[in-house]
């Protein structure tokens, strides 16, 4: 990753971070990385040890990330603030040192298991090759979060071909998320300014876009829908925005069209990746299409029983705390994403295998139902998932946010009337629950269950 530090030097006069409290240049970043490298030695952090950074994006955590990479450590970024979540990640990652961010300084601590070095085969392999590593955790929506180990050097080097740009990126996805790291590495390789939001709600994000003249906003479909509902885009001047990228979950075409209508001057591009493989270079067919095509020489893909399988240069070596059952022997990762194939190599991501609803043996994709429901004028937002039922095994249920008051009985009638000629009978929600807001995670991704 020598090339990256050289770029920091070349970009040294350019703005790196702008925020209300901070203005730093790439020169400041380079200096901080060098200083932290000394600090690591002072704190007896051994090369090849596993080191957690507890905190979200800021100047210090980003500098530390690269100092640790330079020091050939295995970095574990942790953004959780709940004690038990942090503890789980420290244990499963078999962390040697913990660096916690305090305002404007960092605190070092040895983990309780610091004398017993990790004997995991993937960690040992990185040690033998004298390479830095990265441990990310899956979201754990289907069981306990899985710890996966990346070769950080290969991941960083995959950004070497990026050309310098004068832009401002808002870092929306988080520090411990492959999409968030992708934005960061992309930004740094291009020497662009980054804006870090304190909060990730639509109002604050729009405020930052206006204030710092942000050009690129990476976001999730759930966030973009909330943005439209809140009308935050009408309260701020977003004319600096050139590009919105969206990913992490399927994008309903109706939401995409509404975003384009609200922000006609913005180009909309989909991103696609998994924590296991990294983020692939893809292209969207157009700003108003959710069809994508892989354009990445480092990626191979194939479709097996409608499921997308990927094989990439940047994929993980394996899991620390789970079997590699999602990988075939010859290295294909079974993504769990269900896709449809179109002409000219275009694909549409339509949902997750694990979200499929089985109604009497017939498969229903929540996103398909949601994309119809969202067209009903009185529905502001919706989320579809399954409930077990002794007659059909599972039934389709929908949580609905309405624009005006209506009884759930009347709403169900309205939904059935609207869906009758648009969806097969078994796909039409049998149960409706009106809620104040749809259930989404702090990462602005839908959580498909009753709470």
């Amino acid at each position: 990753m020598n090339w990256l530090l050289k770029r920091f030097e070349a970009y040294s006069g350019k703005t790196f971070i702008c925020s209300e409290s901070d203005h730093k240049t790439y020169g400041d970043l380079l200096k901080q990385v060098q200083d932290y490298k000394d600090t690591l030695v002072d704190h007896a952090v051994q090369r090849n040890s596993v080191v957690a950074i507890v905190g979200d994006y800021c100047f210090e955590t980003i500098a530390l990330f690269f100092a640790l990479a330079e020091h050939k450590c295995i970095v574990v970024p942790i953004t959780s603030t709940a004690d038990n979540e942090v503890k789980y990640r420290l244990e499963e990652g078999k962390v040697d040192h913990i660096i916690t961010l305090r305002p404007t300084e960092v605190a070092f601590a040895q983990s309780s298991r610091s004398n017993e070095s990790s004997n995991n085969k993937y960690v040992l392999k990185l040690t033998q090759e004298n390479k830095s590593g990265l441990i990310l955790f899956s979201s754990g929506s289907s069981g306990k979060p899985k710890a996966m180990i990346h070769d950080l050097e290969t991941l960083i080097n995959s950004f070497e071909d990026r050309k310098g740009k004068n832009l401002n990126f808002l870092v929306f996805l988080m520090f411990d998320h492959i999409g968030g790291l992708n934005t960061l590495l992309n930004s740094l390789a291009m020497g662009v300014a980054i804006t870090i939001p304190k909060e990730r709600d639509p109002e604050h994000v729009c405020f930052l876009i206006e204030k710092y003249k942000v050009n690129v906003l990476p976001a999730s479909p759930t966030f973009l829908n909330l943005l439209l509902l809140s009308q935050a885009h009408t309260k701020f001047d977003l004319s600096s925005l050139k590009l919105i990228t969206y990913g992490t979950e399927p994008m309903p075409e109706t939401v995409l069209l509404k975003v384009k209508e609200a922000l006609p001057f913005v180009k909309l591009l989909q991103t696609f990746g998994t924590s296991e493989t990294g983020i692939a270079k893809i292209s969207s067919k157009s700003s108003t299409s959710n069809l994508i095509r892989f354009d990445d020489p480092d990626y191979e893909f194939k479709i097996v029983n409608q499921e997308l399988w990927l094989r990439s240069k940047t994929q993980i070596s394996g899991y620390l705390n789970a079997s590699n059952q999602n990988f075939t022997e010859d290295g294909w990762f079974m993504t769990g994403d269900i896709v449809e194939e179109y002409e000219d190599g275009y694909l549409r991501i339509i949902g997750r295998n694990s979200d499929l609803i089985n109604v009497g043996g017939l498969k229903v994709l929540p996103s398909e139902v949601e994309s119809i429901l969202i067209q009903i004028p009185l529905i502001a937002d919706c989320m579809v998932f399954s409930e077990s039922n002794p007659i059909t095994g599972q039934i389709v249920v929908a949580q609905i946010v309405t624009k005006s008051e209506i009884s759930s009985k009347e709403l169900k009638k309205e939904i059935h009337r609207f869906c009758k000629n648009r969806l097969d009978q078994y796909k039409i929600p049998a149960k409706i629950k009106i809620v104040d807001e749809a259930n989404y995670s702090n990462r602005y991704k839908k959580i498909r269950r009753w709470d």
Partner: protein
Amino acid sequence: MKEQEIKQLIICCINEYLELNETKIDINENTALIGSNAIVNSMGLVNIIVDVESSLLDSDIEISLTSEKAMSRVVSPFRSISSLVNFINEEINEESK
């Protein structure tokens, strides 16, 4: 809730469902919801059950019509409208005991 009211509530739910699906069938207390003479398919049954349950809930009566008890009866509550009335009535009486 009286037997007659329960019956009315069920018939109302069924009629509304049939109307939505543009089916016109005269129903009475012998109308079957399952079996070879059933007026609806399994999706229809599932929907009617959910609707009856939520209508009962509107009257503060919380009953599961797909409980183990309902599903394991020798004579299914869904055999006819009158058997469904009987089942709901029994459940209400049980609750109030």
